């Protein structure tokens, strides 16, 4: 299945969850300072593993950076 991960097309297994996409983005899901949105909807960390992905979805994975 192909999804857009932080704006880039990425191939993931058909049964992949949002947690898998977060890991594929290179984020450590256990760390504070990481968040994810699926098609514009912010998904709580506790729901990542149970949220199945579908072909063509937009996944955004963000982390804390320095900023004023």
């Amino acid at each position, binding site marked *: 299945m192909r999804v857009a991960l932080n704006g880039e097309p990425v191939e993931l297994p058909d049964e992949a969850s949002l947690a898998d996409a977060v890991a594929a983005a290179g984020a450590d899901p256990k760390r504070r*300072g990481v*968040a994810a*949105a699926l098609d514009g909807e*912010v998904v709580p960390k506790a729901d990542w593993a149970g949220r199945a992905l579908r072909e063509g979805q937009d996944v*955004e*994975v*963000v*982390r804390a950076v*320095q900023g*004023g």
Partner: protein
Amino acid sequence: MGSEELAQDRAAAALEIGGRTFGSRLIVGTGGFRSLEVMERALEATGTEMVTVALRRVDPLSQGSVLDVVDRLGLRCLPNTAGCYTARDAIQTAKLAREAFETDWIKLEVIGDDRTLLPDAVELVDAAETLAADGFTVLPYTNDDPILAARLEAAGCAAVMPLGSPIGSGAGIRNPYNVRIIVENAGVPVILDAGIGTASDATLAMELGCSGVLLASSVSRAKDPVAMASAMRKAVEAGHAARAAGRIPRRLHAEASTPDEGLPEL
């Protein structure tokens, strides 16, 4: 000093926002530092208890995390919505920040263009209303406009944060009269946010009656960030103390401090 006086003294020294008390009246941005190591020493030197952080797409190649430093220093995170141009983007970013940092505090920034980075008043009020209604503790970066500040307070914001001048300009407080009027009208803390260039700017903000100062570039981009951090700490404390002490009125002409009486005739 009796315990009651002591308690009053402590209350006067503390900054209260959204039901929380801070010993330091300085909020510091984490942007613009040359390294995390310099940032850590500078943040420590400011004496701050709360720092702003931003959210960006994950970069697997990045080394070290701003949060490691923030946690090591025991500081509170104030996530921002920097880079958002619409209420919709800012609201989404605030929701991401709530998940990422486990806090409903948000420094709300909705800017109008990338040259001035000035707030877009219409989008800002829209986002503030939505986020406050959703339970966020909203600290909006706003123009130095007393009417807009009042609208943001009415929208449920926990503080108002007028700019002194554009972000990163270091141009100081361009309209001290408006900042005074904002302070006069406000029922929530007023934090001077953006435009601070050097220590005297931070002192002026406090002398005008602001409850605190939020700064980033003036420290992070200073030649010696750690030394400037220490200067800013003293500047805010001095301005706050001077405001409380009550300055003398400005006069056009001199007023002698030495009595004329008893002057010998020579």
